[in-house]
């Protein structure tokens, strides 16, 4: 199947999901973006330049790593990991951002804006802007600024202006709203680098296209390594960009099961989660420029969401996934905060890997299911990012006393320096 082969009059739609729901003042801008994107997608030189850039700048292709210890500990399927955590800036976000940077050059725009949740996308965008010479403004919910200071630090030092958004729940969705407000004013010289496969068309298609590099590589690599395709692929789903990235390499392989892993937060029925499809709390709606499943109330107002992972803490989901889920092409599961903490401990100790908290959701789901699979079956997990950035959150989660006393000492030192 080609999900981007739109039928006439349904451009930008995946089943009933997707579309363009924007203020009229952006009509020209989004048309211009669509036109430029179509040109890029049809130009094989563009893709070659994109791949070359990621190879030289970000270390692609990222390897696929076998996890023998974890596999034998769980006693089921053989577990392999696609290592997008080894990218420059530490996550898959750089793929999309470098692609949009090249596209922004073609558009002739000199400024970029972006929203960020965990800060990984903001960090990647600030990096790209420094490299390409663009002015860069990052909108980030005030709550996320508080919980992801290390990324804010890097963004600012890379020359970006970070704006803490004080509206609404002060998280990712509010940062997106604020980006939209900036864009409707500054669209003439500004490109909006949306960080995930959500928002108005062509963003879901465009972000998916750039992230498809993960799946293209992974398919070749796993075939070379084990001589067959994986039985199941797990990827965490916030907006849904790393997942659609790896899944695209296997969409036409009938025997490969695709599993999207959402943020279960405090669990089913807690109203404190961000599981749009795995739990039963979301319904179809239109917000932030597109139609998809949203965590919203009867009146169409968005609900509060929660996750230990800021990058999964979002109300909506890639419209392509709403469609693929309905078509039974992708299964959705959720992992709770607690399961994620346990999984993280296990992975660090057994394999010496430190996945990001977002990514650990995919591990947690795979760890649950691996023991029920046969020893000759293959699991592939997309390691979308590394966990170093989460050191404050992880230290809290693991209640690490040594870390706490280190921070206390640091604070005392700063206080003394001030006086």
């Amino acid at each position, binding site marked *: 199947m080609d999900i981007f082969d739109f039928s006439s009059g349904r451009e930008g739609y995946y089943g009933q999901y997707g579309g363009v729901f*924007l203020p*009229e*003042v952006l009509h020209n801008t989004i048309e211009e973006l669509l036109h430029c994107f179509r040109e890029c997608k049809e130009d094989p030189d563009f893709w070659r330049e994109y791949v070359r850039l990621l190879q030289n700048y970000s270390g692609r292709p990222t390897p696929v790593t076998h996890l023998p210890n974890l596999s034998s500990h769980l006693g089921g399927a053989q577990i392999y990991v696609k290592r997008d955590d080894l990218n420059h800036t530490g996550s898959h976000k750089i793929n999309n951002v470098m692609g949009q940077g090249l596209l922004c050059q073609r558009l002739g725009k000199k400024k970029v804006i972006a929203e960020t949740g965990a800060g990984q996308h903001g960090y990647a965008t600030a990096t790209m802007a420094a490299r390409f010479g663009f002015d860069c403004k990052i909108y980030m919910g005030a709550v996320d600024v508080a919980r992801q200071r290390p990324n804010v630090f890097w963004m600012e030092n890379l020359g970006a202006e970070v704006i803490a958004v004080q509206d609404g729940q002060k998280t990712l969705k509010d940062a997106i709203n604020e980006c*939209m407000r900036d864009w409707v004013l500054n669209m003439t010289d500004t490109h909006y680098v949306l960080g995930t496969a959500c928002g108005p068309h062509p963003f879901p298609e465009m972000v998916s296209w750039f992230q498809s590099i993960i799946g293209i590589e992974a398919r070749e690599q796993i075939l070379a390594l084990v001589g067959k395709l994986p039985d199941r692929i797990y990827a965490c789903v916030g907006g849904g960009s790393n997942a659609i990235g790896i899944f695209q390499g296997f969409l036409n392989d009938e025997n490969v099961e695709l599993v999207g892993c959402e943020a279960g937060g405090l669990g089913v029925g807690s109203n404190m989660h961000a599981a749009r499809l795995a739990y039963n709390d979301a319904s179809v709606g239109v917000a*932030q420029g597109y139609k998809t499943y949203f965590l*919203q109330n009867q009146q169409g107002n968005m609900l509060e969401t929660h996750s230990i992972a800021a990058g999964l803490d979002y109300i909506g989901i890639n419209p392509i996934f709403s469609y693929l889920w309905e078509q039974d092409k992708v299964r959705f599961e959720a992992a709770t905060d607690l399961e994620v903490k346990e999984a993280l401990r296990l992975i660090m100790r057994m394999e010496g890997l430190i996945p990001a908290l977002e990514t650990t959701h995919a591990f947690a789901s795979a760890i649950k299911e691996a023991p029920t699979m046969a020893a000759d079956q293959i699991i592939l997990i997309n390691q979308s990012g590394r966990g170093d950035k989460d050191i404050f959150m992880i230290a809290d989660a693991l209640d690490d006393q040594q870390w706490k006393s280190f921070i206390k000492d640091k604070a005392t030192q700063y206080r003394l320096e001030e006086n």
Partner: protein
Amino acid sequence: MELATYIRERRQEKELLIMAHVVCGYPSFEENMQALEIMEQAGVDLVELQFPFSEPSADGPIFVRANEESLKSGTTIDQCFDFMRAVTSRFTFKVLMMGYYNTVFKMGEKDFLERLSAAGGVAFILPDLPIAESVMLRKTALSRGIDPIIFMTPTSSEKRLSELGAASSGMVYVVARKGVTGTKSNIDAEVVALLQRCRMHTDVPLGLGFGISNRDDLQVLRGTADVAIIGTAALKTWQNAGPFGLRDFFHALS
């Protein structure tokens, strides 16, 4: 009576009509009613009642806060329609619903139109619903005598203006500048030129909004626009100077 006819008839006596804006439930429905009373006395011709939404991405800080506060205090859609009913039976100005598309989508387009009709509303303004996505809604609305209000903007090409013109009914909402609601605009020759461009593409009355705040602005618009749309400036006045301030504000306009 359809909106365009109402505006044309009022225009026989008045060069420039005024449309005001109220966010339902902010600061409270009682205060909304008090503000509307003042608007009626000041001769306001049209009022848009905004149904609060959690993601008001086309609004600036003052309306964003108003939406947030209203929802926090528990405002529901039922209350908004009940309020609209009360307003339309009490006052002579015409009432339009303003809001975001998800409010309509979640209740269903048919239900929405039925309830809007029953509450005495004559039109709706949904800034995040482009014409390509509203074909059915606009058709059904027109068959019930309700006008879908569409936007024309400074970034619209001639080709786009003609598409928008073909879809227009009741009134066109011309946006004075880029950006969201709330900041002051320069109502100048450029805005007049924009209105003249829009005029070439539609026969329905033109309302101009975004950043209108005083008598001088209205003076510039006389003769080119049919309706001056006043939003944030009035709410700001209410917040800073209460009912008396609002009375003075509208009096100073005329």
